[in-house]
């Protein structure tokens, strides 16, 4: 397997979160009762006239620009014809030979190196409905057309990806960019981002193109990585055994940890694309493109570069903080109001993210505000609480949204910096542990840490650590 390299291209579909569907005015909403979010247009009833949602076009141009694409001055919609019950018109409105965006790229970082992955095209299309298959051996399927007509972007990468890690990094970067420009929720688990992969392997460095397979049914970024790993292994084994890889569609089987054949790949000509006569061509003026470009927010790469220069963060921390716009916003709101942006970064990439993951939350749903964190850091600076107690306070703030000061009062967590009180406790600890004290005097450094620990225990962690160290040293 070491002598082979993989050639991977990804095809990503993202649902855009416009208010209404792509070509009709039904709400673009998830989770309604089956078939209650439809109208004659998305049902494909005869005689209706679809009209493009201006937000779909704006979102698509935004995404194209954020992915460094050229925006086509002239673009049109085509019908992709195929018969499937989740597609009420028997064709999908899509774009074929004149997609809206072409020739873009995005940069990914893997193992400290930056690689550029080309983006062949980004085009607009509509989603299909959902099929619910009858239980057991039932010979019927049920159709829910609520999702039919929801706007999608199809984003096709060049076959520039060489490893499963790069594929995952590409998806993470894509998700990050699309979330920054606020066009999609990009939740793979909920189906608002879907990914298929084209993959072939070849002897390393030869540049030949072997038959590729298309992998479907991957439901998380991790699944994409694992499926590609398994498929590389499988294809390498086929070639190594003197066989030939068949060009086919395969499905990732999570339980088996392998890909399995699906159906033979339909030829493009079978879709019999032709221009959709219902939808008129799109001509986008340079003015409109520059207006949309001027409205783009600062994108993750640029923001990460600024975080390293403006706040003195490492490239790694800046990358973690800027991967999500909500996280970067949270961080920046704190960093702007506190003297030490690196310390803020430690708290945000550390405790904050730990709790976000442990509680399985979205950052926007976190009750803790940037002001809360800054207040707490200032309380540490003032000596009101110790850094150790701060972790307890932070977790409480995170879960309840209360202010640090209130939590400290309620729980009696104020740091004990009273010399008299601490001296008394130090005395007690020393008296109670004559053996340990003797060890320390005989040069055992660890014994000292034990004694400090005992003082901390007696004060339930509230003792001022610097003061405890000094008092203890003086006493013994």
């Amino acid at each position, binding site marked *: 397997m070491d002598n082979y390299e993989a050639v991977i291209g990804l095809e990503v579909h993202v649902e855009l979160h416009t208010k*209404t569907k792509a070509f009709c005015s039904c709400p673009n909403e998830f989770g309604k009762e089956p*078939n209650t979010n439809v109208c004659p247009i998305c049902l494909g009833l005869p005689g209706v006239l679809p009209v493009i949602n201006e937000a779909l076009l704006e979102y698509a141009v935004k995404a194209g620009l954020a992915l460094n694409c050229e925006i086509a001055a002239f673009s049109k919609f085509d019908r992709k014809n195929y018969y499937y*019950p989740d597609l009420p018109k028997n064709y999908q409105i899509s774009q074929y030979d004149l997609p809206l965006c072409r020739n873009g790229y995005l940069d990914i970082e893997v193992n400290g190196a930056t690689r550029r992955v080309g983006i062949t095209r980004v085009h607009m299309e509509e989603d299909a409905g959902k099929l619910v298959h009858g239980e057991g051996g*039932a010979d019927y*399927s049920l159709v829910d057309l609520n999702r039919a007509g929801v706007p999608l972007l199809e984003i096709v990468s060049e076959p520039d990806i060489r490893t499963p890690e790069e594929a995952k990094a590409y998806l993470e970067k894509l998700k990050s960019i699309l979330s920054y420009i606020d066009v999609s929720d990009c939740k793979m688990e909920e189906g608002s981002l879907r990914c298929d992969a084209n993959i072939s392997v070849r002897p390393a460095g030869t540049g030949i193109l072997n038959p590729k397979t298309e992998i479907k049914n991957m439901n998380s970024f991790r699944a994409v990585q694992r499926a590609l790993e398994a498929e590389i292994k499988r294809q390498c084994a086929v070639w190594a055994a003197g066989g030939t890889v068949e060009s086919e569609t395969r499905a990732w089987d999570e339980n088996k940890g392998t890909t399995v054949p699906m159906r033979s790949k339909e030829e493009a000509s079978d879709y*019999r694309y032709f221009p959709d006569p219902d939808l008129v061509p799109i001509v986008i003026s340079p003015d409109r493109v520059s207006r949309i470009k001027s409205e783009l927010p600062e994108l993750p790469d640029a923001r990460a570069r600024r975080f390293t220069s403006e706040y003195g963060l490492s490239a790694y921390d800046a990358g973690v903080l800027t991967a999500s716009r909500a996280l970067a916003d949270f961080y920046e709101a704190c960093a702007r109001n506190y003297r030490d942006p690196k310390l803020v970064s430690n708290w945000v990439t550390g405790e904050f993210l730990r709790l976000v993951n442990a509680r399985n939350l979205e950052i926007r749903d976190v009750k803790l505000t940037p002001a809360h964190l800054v207040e707490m850091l200032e309380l540490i600076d003032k000596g009101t609480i110790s850094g150790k107690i701060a972790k307890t306070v932070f977790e409480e703030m995170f879960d309840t949204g209360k202010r640090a000061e209130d939590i400290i009062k309620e729980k009696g967590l104020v740091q004990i910096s009273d010399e008299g009180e601490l001296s008394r406790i130090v005395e007690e600890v020393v008296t109670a542990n004559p053996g340990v004290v003797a060890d320390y005097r005989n040069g055992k450094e660890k014994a000292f840490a034990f004694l400090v620990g005992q003082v901390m225990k007696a004060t339930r962690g509230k003792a001022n650590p610097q003061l405890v160290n000094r008092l203890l040293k003086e006493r013994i």
Partner: protein
Amino acid sequence: MKLSKKEVEHVALLARLALSEEEKERFRAQLSSVLEYADIINRLDTEKVAPTYHVLPIQNVERPDKEHETLPLEETLQNAPQRDGNYFRVPRII
């Protein structure tokens, strides 16, 4: 251009149509005559004519991103050959 029987069968399959032998022959003749007519048009010199991407001379018809009423469920399902609760019911595909 004469269509082969195989081509007719391929097109019929794509359209999910089950044709009898007699129909295949009938449609082969009809489709062939359509294509022959297209051949005549193809003979025209279009060297200096810009390609037509669309039959209408208008562009950029967009609608605002505003919600409208959806269809009541009973109307949505009124023509369904088979219904199952809120769903259209169809023969199983997979």
